[in-house]
């Protein structure tokens, strides 16, 4: 047990140590030293996680550090929970994290504030590990807020550009709106259960009746938190803007790890969600709608990172749809494969951007497959994976989700398949416009250094073979990941829904055929003759609407920002300047006025004084002798 405790503490402590080293030494460390230390810390953390993982005995271990908040009946420990779910997330976070740290050494080495960057990246890893390892909601919340803060810092890393700062603020504030739900959910659960430890909450919650309004409220509020962090409708507009940050940040935070925190949270509380069918429906439909939303908006974006951002939104929608159907195993599976291929896509995009000296507009790329070979190949693998081409990893996870959605709700299934076609369309549009055709830019492209391409290759391999983790029965596999995770989440919903083998084969055939069809269409449109989009203003109405993100930003501006500004202005101009300040000033004026009035009594006329005194004596005597 001592070994497990020590390792469990080391896992988050190592990145924290990295924060201190790179943070305090940010003036003295060279770019490579800082990057090397930061990467080493996360790598060590990965090794520790791996040891924990290999030694895992299927039990849930609580590593209790100290009592954090203790008031009255509330005793919230600072504790870690080591079970299959957290172990799996630790592996994903530290594993992908190590690769992205490594990649960042190459990507960021010219930046003057590279050590600060690595400190913040390490701080993110620390927060993310706290998030997944927490043994109660509140410790998770530490990480939850911590990753939000790191996200804010890293989005606005190049702080001299006001738009980036705005994007960072937007991300943080929208996350905070989700946190409102999270905080309220925690307050509710504490009120109901008297504890926030996952084990106890799940045990007590599991005893309650299905559909209990309390559980429904709690799960809905938790889900609000999840929508904020995982960029689901309606709190998703921050994620595309978050692409302002350096590309490794987008890969690590806004694709592979942080945005999946919402999924993690729902899986963590799966016992409660199982008891709230109403919430599950909402989760399903929010997921489906987000998947469709992201996929449609991705169609007409011209910024390479924006396309990937909307793709992330869309893929997160898939994950939530899976959770909505109760298929937590495939949800987590998709988290994993998505982490592989989306991190790869971002890193490859970063490599392209690096190669082109900062250019992000796909209309000014093209023909890069000859120059940046490694990047091209890895990008191609990732694209095939995300489109669900068998036997790459995306195929297994996405197909699992589609199958369980079909079992739960065929309409949702149809929408998701449509979204998968759109995904294939915009991903291949991206691929073709970037790597095929002729070069349309001005800079001189060059392949990235080894330190950047090695992570690409590793991730490409993972994207390709990641499906092996969870091979379903019909291919003769044993759904290893599902089985593994089931030990953590009490087994509920971890097994895929039972469809007949025939139906499954049919579904796979349908989706694969449709995706291939779409790829052919994209090829004919972008590879054969290179169709470029203009500015949104020149587009037909529906296309313009989609390209402008269904006007969601404008809607929010009209719905929230404007009224907020209006209230703020009028609270100040009326509440403060017209009411409150005159009130204080009035106190002063009233005192002065009263004094002015009272000083008339001081006439200086002694007869009057005598008179007043006499009246006083009379009154006093009357009071004394006639009251008793």
């Amino acid at each position: 047990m001592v070994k497990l405790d020590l390792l469990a503490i080391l896992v988050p402590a190592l990145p924290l140590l990295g924060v201190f080293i790179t943070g305090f030494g940010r003036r003295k460390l060279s770019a490579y030293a800082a990057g090397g230390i930061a990467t080493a810390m996360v790598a060590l953390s990965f090794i520790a996680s791996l040891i924990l993982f290999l030694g895992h005995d299927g039990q849930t271990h609580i590593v209790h550090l100290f009592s954090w908040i203790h008031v009255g009946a509330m005793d919230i420990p600072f504790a870690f929970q080591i079970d299959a779910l957290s172990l799996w997330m630790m592996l994903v976070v530290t594993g992908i994290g190590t690769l992205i740290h490594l990649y960042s050494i190459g990507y960021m080495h010219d930046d003057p504030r590279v050590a600060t960057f690595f400190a913040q990246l390490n701080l993110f890893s620390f927060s993310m590990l706290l998030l997944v390892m927490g043994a109660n909601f509140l410790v998770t919340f530490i990480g939850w807020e911590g990753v939000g803060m790191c996200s804010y810092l890293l989005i606005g890393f190049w702080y001299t550009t006001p738009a980036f700062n705005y994007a960072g603020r937007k991300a943080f504030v929208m996350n905070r709106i989700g946190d409102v739900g999270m905080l309220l959910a925690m307050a509710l659960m504490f009120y109901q259960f008297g504890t926030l430890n996952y084990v106890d909450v799940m045990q007590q919650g599991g005893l309650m009746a299905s559909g209990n309004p309390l559980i429904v409220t709690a799960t809905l509020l938790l889900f609000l938190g999840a929508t904020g962090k995982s960029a689901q409708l309606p709190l998703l507009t921050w994620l595309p803007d978050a692409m302002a940050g350096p590309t490794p940040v987008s890969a690590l935070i806004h694709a592979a790890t942080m945005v999946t925190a919402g999924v993690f949270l729902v899986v963590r509380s799966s016992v409660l969600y199982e008891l709230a069918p109403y919430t599950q429906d909402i989760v399903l439909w929010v997921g489906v709608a987000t998947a469709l939303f992201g996929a449609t908006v991705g169609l007409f974006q011209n910024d390479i990172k924006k396309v990937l951002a909307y793709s992330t939104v869309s893929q997160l929608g898939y994950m939530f749809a899976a959770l909505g159907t109760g298929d937590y195993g495939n949800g987590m599976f998709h988290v994993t494969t998505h982490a592989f291929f989306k991190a790869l896509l971002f890193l490859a995009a970063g490599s392209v951007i690096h190669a082109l000296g900062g250019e992000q507009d796909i209309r000014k790329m093209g023909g890069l497959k000859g120059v940046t070979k490694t990047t091209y190949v890895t990008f191609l693998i990732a694209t095939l994976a995300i489109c669900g081409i068998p036997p790459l990893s995306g195929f297994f996870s996405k197909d699992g989700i589609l199958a369980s959605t079909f079992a739960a709700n065929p309409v949702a299934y149809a929408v998701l398949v449509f979204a998968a076609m759109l995904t294939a369309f915009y991903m291949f549009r991206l691929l073709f416009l970037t790597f095929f055709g002729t070069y349309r830019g001005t800079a001189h492209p060059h392949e990235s250094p080894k330190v950047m391409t090695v992570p690409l290759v590793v991730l490409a391999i993972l994207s390709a073979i990641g499906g092996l983790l969870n091979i379903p029965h019909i291919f003769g596999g044993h759904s290893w990941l599902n089985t593994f995770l089931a030990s953590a989440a009490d087994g509920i919903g971890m097994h895929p829904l039972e469809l007949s083998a025939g139906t499954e084969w049919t579904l796979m055939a349908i989706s694969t055929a449709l995706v291939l069809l779409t790829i052919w269409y994209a090829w004919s449109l972008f590879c054969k003759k290179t169709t470029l989009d203009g500015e949104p203003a020149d587009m037909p109405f529906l296309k313009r609407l989609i390209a402008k993100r269904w006007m969601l930003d404008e809607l929010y501006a009209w719905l929230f920002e404007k009224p907020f500004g209006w209230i703020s202005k009028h609270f100040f101009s009326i509440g403060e300047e017209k009411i409150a300040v005159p009130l204080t000033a009035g106190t002063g004026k009233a005192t002065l006025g009263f004094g002015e009035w009272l000083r008339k009594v001081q006439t200086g006329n002694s007869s009057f004084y005598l008179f007043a005194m006499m009246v006083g004596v009379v009154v006093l005597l009357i009071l004394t002798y006639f009251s008793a």
Partner: protein
Amino acid sequence: MEHVMTAIRVVPLDSYLVLSFLLFSIGMVGALVRRNVIIVIMCLELMLNSVNLLLVAFSAYHSDPGAQIMVFFIMLVAAAEVTVGLSILVLMKRNTDSVDMNILNRLKW
């Protein structure tokens, strides 16, 4: 001596109370209504005397010389007060050519 005793006690103490209250009130009304400073001073003397009278009456009825000593001191103080008061009056008349009480309200500055 017995004669003196009954003689003193023929008049009830209440009568002295009423008398001195009456004198006091008259003095006070005078101090209120008159504007001539010297008359006001006279009224003050009148009020002092009404109190003196009461003190002496109580002293006689209670056979306590203390009250009479107090009257004695009151007279001393009254004499001193009148001396100073009248010299102020003279000064006032000399400076303002008036003995009107209301002139004195300038003192409030």
